[in-house]
C-alpha cells in the first residue's frame, strides 16, 4: 500500500529567498509524524505547500500514490488533507455549531440549512470527542464568548467535521493546558486507530516523544533526517536540528560593558501571549530574545513600546516606574522600536523621507509647530551617519529599497536619542550587505551605552550579536544563556523545552 503522503524534492522560492531547497516527508497510514526544525528551516512552508495555501516551484507530492498538484486550499481539502489553523479561521459572531460546519452546512431538499441535522451532527461530534471538548462547550454560544482554549477546541472540531485522512497540526497544543493536552492526545490516538494520518508540529519536544511515531528534522530548507521515536532520544534530535557545522561553531564571546545599575527592569509582565516575564537590561547591553517564532518575543517588545499594552506587570526605567499605554508614552521616555514589518509598523506611506525621519522627534520634543527647512539639516546628518543612499529628503519613502528604508527608520529613532532600543525581527526582507551594515550600527550604539533588546527569527543573528540570550517558550522565559553556554545547540535545545 502506498503511504498516505509522500513528498520529495519539494522546492519553493520567494523572490530571491530560497525557503525550501529539498523538502521530503513520508507519512504512513495511521501514523503521527513530527516535523521539527529551527526557525526558518522550511517546515511551515512545506506544510503550507501540502495544504495548498502556498504553491510549490518543484518536486512531487503523492497522496495514497496519486499525484497532488493543488491550485488552492480547496484542492488539498478534496484530497482529504486538513490544516489546523491557530484560532484564525473562526468567526466570532457565529455560534460554535455554525463555525464547525461553516461552508459545509447540511441542507434540506429546499436548500435551507437543516438546523436539526446541524445540531445532531455537532452533538455527535462533541460526544465523540467529549474527552477533549469537555463539558461547558455549548453549541449555540457565540465563539466571541469562548476562552482561547475553548476556541482552540472548536477549531479542532471544525477540522474533524470535514473527516480528513491527513491532518496537519501546527502548534495545536500551544493554547492548551496539560490536562487538555492529555485529552487532545487521547483524541489523536483515537483518530490514529481509525487510520487517520497526522503531521504534528510542536515546540515541546517532550510532547513529540510522547505522541509521535516518527520524527522528520529539517534544516535550512532541507530534510536532513527521519528518526523512529522509539529508537532515538531528544539529544540526537536536537543535534540533527542544529547540524554538525553549527555545533562546533562557538561565537566569539563578548562581555557587555561593565555597568553600575540595570537601566530597564521588567517584572512579571503578562499579556495575551506573555506569561510572567521578568528581565533586567543593562546600559550598553544587547540582550537577545530567542526561541521559536511566536513564543511571546514580539508581544514583549510591542508591550514595552505600548503598541499592544501589557495586561499586568511593572516596567521601570532607571528608578522611574513607567505607564506604557500607547507608543507616545514610550517615545517620551526614550524607548525606540524598530520592526521588521516596516509596512505595518514604520512606514508613513506616500510621505517624504524627511517626514518619515522627523515623525518620532516631533513627538519626543512635543513640537506643536515645525519649520521644515531649519530641521532638514539635522535629519540630513542623521541619515548620512548611517551610510544611507537616497535621492533626496523630499522623495517618497517608497522609492527606497527595504534595507535603505530600515536605515531611515533607524535614523528616525536615533534623532530622538533613545536610551532603550527594541528590535523586533528587524532584518526581515533585507539583503546581506544591508544586514551587515545594520549589525555594525547596533554594535556601535551598544558601545555608546544604548541598551538593546533584540528579537530575531534567525538564531545565527542572535548568537553573533548578543551578550546574553533569553529563550522564550510558550510566552515565558524558559532559559537564560550567557558566557560559554551561548551556543547554537543550547539555543535550539532550550527553544524546544529541552534542558540546556
Amino acid at each position, binding site marked *: 500500500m502506498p503511504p498516505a503522503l509522500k513528498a520529495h524534492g519539494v522546492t519553493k522560492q520567494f523572490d530571491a529567498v530560497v525557503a525550501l531547497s529539498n523538502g521530503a516527508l513520508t507519512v504512513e497510514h495511521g501514523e503521527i509524524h513530527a516535523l521539527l526544525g529551527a526557525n526558518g528551516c522550511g517546515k511551515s512552508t512545506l506544510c503550507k505547500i501540502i495544504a495548498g495555501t502556498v504553491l510549490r516551484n518543484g518536486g512531487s507530492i503523492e497522496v495514497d500514490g496519486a499525484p497532488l498538484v493543488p491550485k488552492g*486550499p*480547496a484542492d488539498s*481539502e478534496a484530497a482529504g488533507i486538513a490544516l489546523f*489553523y491557530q484560532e*484564525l*479561521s*473562526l*468567526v*466570532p*459572531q*457565529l455560534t460554535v455549531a*455554525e463555525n464547525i460546519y*461553516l*461552508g459545509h*452546512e447540511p*441542507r434540506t431538499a429546499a*436548500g*435551507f*440549512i437543516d438546523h436539526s441535522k446541524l445540531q445532531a451532527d455537532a452533538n455527535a461530534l462533541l460526544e465523540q470527542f467529549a474527552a477533549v471538548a469537555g463539558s461547558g462547550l455549548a453549541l449555540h454560544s*457565540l465563539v466571541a464568548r469562548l476562552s482561547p482554549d475553548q476556541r482552540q477546541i472548536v477549531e479542532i472540531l*471544525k477540522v474533524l467535521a470535514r473527516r480528513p485522512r491527513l491532518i496537519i497540526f501546527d502548534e495545536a497544543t500551544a493554547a492548551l493546558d496539560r490536562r487538555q493536552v492529555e485529552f487532545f492526545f487521547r483524541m489523536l490516538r483515537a483518530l490514529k486507530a481509525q487510520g487517520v494520518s497526522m503531521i504534528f508540529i510542536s515546540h515541546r519536544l517532550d510532547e513529540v516523544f510522547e505522541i509521535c511515531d516518527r520524527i522528520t528534522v529539517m534544516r535550512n530548507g532541507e530534510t536532513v533526517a527521519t528518526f523512529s521515536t522509539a529508537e532515538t532520544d531528544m539529544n540526537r534530535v536536537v543535534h540533527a536540528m542544529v547540524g554538525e557545522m553549527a555545533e562546533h561553531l562557538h561565537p566569539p564571546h563578548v562581555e557587555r560593558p561593565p555597568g553600575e545599575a540595570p537601566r530597564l527592569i521588567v517584572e512579571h509582565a503578562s499579556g495575551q501571549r506573555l506569561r510572567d516575564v521578568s528581565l533586567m537590561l543593562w546600559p550598553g547591553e544587547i540582550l537577545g530574545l530567542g526561541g521559536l517564532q511566536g513564543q511571546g518575543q514580539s508581544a514583549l517588545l510591542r508591550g514595552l513600546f505600548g503598541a499592544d499594552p501589557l495586561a499586568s506587570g511593572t516596567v521601570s526605567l532607571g528608578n522611574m516606574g513607567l505607564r506604557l499605554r500607547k507608543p507616545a508614552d514610550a517615545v517620551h521616555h526614550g524607548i525606540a522600536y524598530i520592526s521588521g514589518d516596516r509596512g505595518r509598523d514604520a512606514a508613513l506611506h506616500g510621505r517624504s523621507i524627511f517626514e518619515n525621519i522627523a515623525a518620532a522627534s516631533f513627538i519626543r520634543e512635543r513640537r506643536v509647530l515645525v519649520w521644515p527647512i531649519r530641521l532638514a539639516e539635522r535629519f540630513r546628518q542623521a541619515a548620512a551617519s548611517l551610510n544611507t543612499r537616497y535621492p533626496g529628503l523630499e522623495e517618497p519613502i517608497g522609492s527606497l529599497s527595504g534595507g535603505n528604508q530600515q536605515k531611515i527608520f533607524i535614523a528616525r529613532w536615533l534623532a530622538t536619542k533613545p536610551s532603550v532600543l527594541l528590535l523586533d525581527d528587524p532584518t526581515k526582507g533585507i539583503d546581506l550587505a544591508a544586514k551587515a551594515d545594520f549589525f555594525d550600527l547596533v554594535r556601535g550604539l551598544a558601545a555608546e551605552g544604548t541598551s538593546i533588546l533584540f528579537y530575531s527569527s534567525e538564531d545565527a543573528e542572535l548568537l553573533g550579536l548578543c551578550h546574553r540570550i533569553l529563550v522564550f517558550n510558550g510566552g515565558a522565559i524558559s532559559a537564560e544563556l550567557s558566557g560559554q553556554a551561548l551556543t547554537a545547540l543550547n539555543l535550539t535545545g532550550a527553544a524546544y523545552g529541552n534542558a540546556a
Partner: protein
Amino acid sequence: MTGMAMVLRGRSWLVTLAALLVLVAVNGVLQPNLFTGNVLKSNLTVFLPLVLVAIGQTYVVLAGDIDLSVGAIIALVNVVTVAVINAVGNGVGAVLLGVTAGLLTGIVSGLFNGFLVAVMRFQPIVTTFATGIIFSGMALWLLPTAGLPVPAVYWRTYSGSLLGLPVTLWIFALALLLVAILVRRPFLTHLAAVGGSRTGAFQTGLPVARIRIQGYVLAGLFSAFASLCLTGETASGDPLMGRMLALSSISAVVLGGTALAGGSGSAFGSVLGALVLGMIGNVIFFAGLPFEYQTLVQGLITLAALAGGILVARR
C-alpha cells in the same frame, strides 16, 4: 452580565420593537383615527420604500460593506422603467417589460458595485459614493427633468387591492417572506461569516468575493423594488427620486441592531428600524412640531442606537 443584557444580546431588535410600540401608542393618542384601514394603508404606502431599501442595505452591511448608491439606483431604476414603458407603448405588456427592465437595472447596478468593491478591492464607502454619482448622472441623462407619466394601469394596480387586501400590504408580506427564506439559507451564515472575519471565512474556503457581490446584488434588487413602489406612488419619472433614502436606509439598519462593522444583525431588525424612522415623522407631524425637527430627531436616534450597540458590544 445582567439578565437584561443577556436577553438583549443578539436580539437588539427587541429594543427597536419596544420603541416602535411606544411610537405607535403616542401616534394613536395624537391621531385618534390611526387604526382605521385607510390611515394604516396610507402609512404603509409612505413607509414601504424605506423598508425595502433597508432590507437590501442589511445584506451589504452584514458582509462588512456599505452601499451609499442605493438612492441613486432608485432614481435610475425609476427612469429606466418609465422610459421603457413609454417607448414600448403604455399597455399592460409595456408595463411588465418596464418593470423587468427596472429590476435588471437594479441587479446590474449591484453587480457593478460588488465587482468594484470585492474583486477590484476598492474601498466600499468611497466607491459606492462615486457609483451613486454615476447612477444619478445616468438617470439625469436619460430623463433631464421630472415628467413622463406612467399608464394608469400601473398606479391603479399599486394603490388597489388584491383578495380584499391592499397591494402594498401584499408587497410588504412578500418582502418579509423573502427575508424569512434568506434567513434559512446557508448564504446568510456565509454573509455574516465574511463580515465577521474575512480571514476566517477565506481560510474556511468560502468564496469571499462572490458572497460580497451577492450582498450588493441583493441591495440593488431591493432598491429596484423600492423604486417600483415609489413609481406607483408618484406615477411619473423623476431623476432625483429617492435621494434621501441611502442615508435613511443606513439609519434603519443601525436602528435595527445590525453592526456596521458587519457579522451580526438581521433584515427583520432593519424593517423595524425603517418603521421606527417613519413613525418618528408621523409623531412629529401630529404633535404639530415643524417638519425640520424630523431629520434632527432621526439623526439623534441613530446616534443613540450606535452608542447603544457599542455599549452592548463592550461588555
